[in-house]
């Protein structure tokens, strides 16, 4: 496993990026790229993160991010990068 995409969507409020980044840091995960906008009050962010050493721990990371999402009232998806690549490239 190499990279994953973390997407965060929900009502904007202080602390969303901090919460997500903190969780990633706890799992010792490096953020490679971030793109974030606010569309009519809706916070949307996608992050590309490095999962090099995380083969075993993917589920733990996903569970923790889901818990953070619940706390912040946003939806967080954590998915392997290949799925997006496969669908968008020939």
């Amino acid at each position, binding site marked *: *496993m190499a990279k994953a*995409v973390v*997407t965060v969507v929900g009502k904007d409020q202080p602390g969303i990026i901090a919460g997500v980044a903190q969780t990633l840091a706890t799992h010792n995960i490096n953020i490679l790229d971030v*793109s974030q*906008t606010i569309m009519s009050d809706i916070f*949307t962010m*996608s992050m*590309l993160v490095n999962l090099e050493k995380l083969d075993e721990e*993917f*589920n733990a990371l*996903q569970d923790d991010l889901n818990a953070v999402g619940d706390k912040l009232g946003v939806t967080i*998806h*954590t*998915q*392997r*990068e*290949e*799925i*997006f*690549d*496969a*669908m*968008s490239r*020939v």
Partner: protein
Amino acid sequence: METNQITETINMVAEEHLDIRTVTMGISLLDTIAGTPQETAKNIYTKITTYAEKLVPVAQQIEREFGIPITNKRISVTPIALIAGKASPDDMLYYAHALDDAAKAVGVDFIGGYSALVQKGFANGDLALIKSIPRALTETDLVMSSINIGSTKAGINLDAIKLMGETIKAITDKSDTANAKMVVFANAVEDNPFMAGAFHGVSEPDVVINVGVSGPGVVKRALEKVQGEPIQIVAETVKKTAFKITRVGQVVGTLAAERLGVEFGIVDLSLAPTPARGDSVAEVLEEIGLEMVGTHGTTAALMLLNDAVKKGGVMASQRVGGLSGAFIPVSEDAGMIDAVKAGVLSLAKLEAMTSVCSVGLDMIAIPGDTAATTISAMIADEAAIGVQNNKTTAVRILPTNGTKVGDMVDYGGLLGTAPVMQVVEKSSANFINRGGHIPAPIHSFKN
């Protein structure tokens, strides 16, 4: 990577019902044949539970990592009639129970392959298996059966068709819903991951992973963006969407095969509906411009859809196989059910539609007092369409005792609910009772 591509993928799953319909492990049982049915049944159980032990957990983990639901995990096996060549109909039950027990032990949703290939005639095992079907399907829970009664190369076995009409009636007398677990094929394919027709052909490798992808909702949403455009734009849009959907199957199948340590077989891109609104092939046809599915123009719209799905899928996968196309089951498709209830979609129109899509008369409820020979004649018509046009056709017709036209029959879960449809009441008995064999069409002689 573009953010909008990420959003597009997530929406396909969250709002448009994109799913991997099935990850199906095909397992050859040719090396399980022993001296007695009991010993063979034991070997079958052992082989299936050994190879498929991790199928469900591996599929669930992949589901998590990709964020794409895998709706069913299934197993297909070598047609049991080949494995049980010496068995009596009573012996056959050992095999049916071995399959059912193994499927339950590994936690899969269905196991297919309680099958016989009789397009040219019956061997001992074929007849024993067909005679055992009513008991096998009602005494087990997860076993699915398929019988191939015709092929372009061999012609159509009318004796088998007669027998299958009687068998369907015999199942009906034992159960209201077990008929949904059996399908009668012409030109059956050997790597089909979809049920009830999945079996593991004899030319397949020992163990293989095949994947079935679906997403009529995704296609419908894509077509909503090209309203009023010329029809070739519709074809192009379906093609591009089919490409994306099939890629998901390719990625999931490759990873599943790798983790299970077996070969990756094929991706079957079939627009297979579920009873959920927004996951309907009928709605896709209506989006192309029909007020309701079943009206004039339905066959043309379906032909375009089926063809464009195949073209997009072929480009997206290393190996495309199975049925690949559009499915038109009535009970599993909310739009089809509406059209039948409204009196717009008839059996005759459904038959016409099957000449241009990937399957046949599927999940159609009919009155319980329909004659066995009439059911056989429906099978014969479908087989004729398949054999003459070099394509697969299937019949899953569901007579239910005590029902009349317009009643609803519930089959549970993904199998949905079907309105009982009108059947032509004039007899076909003298035709079916002739028995014998319809010769293969002239264009099958290509050597």
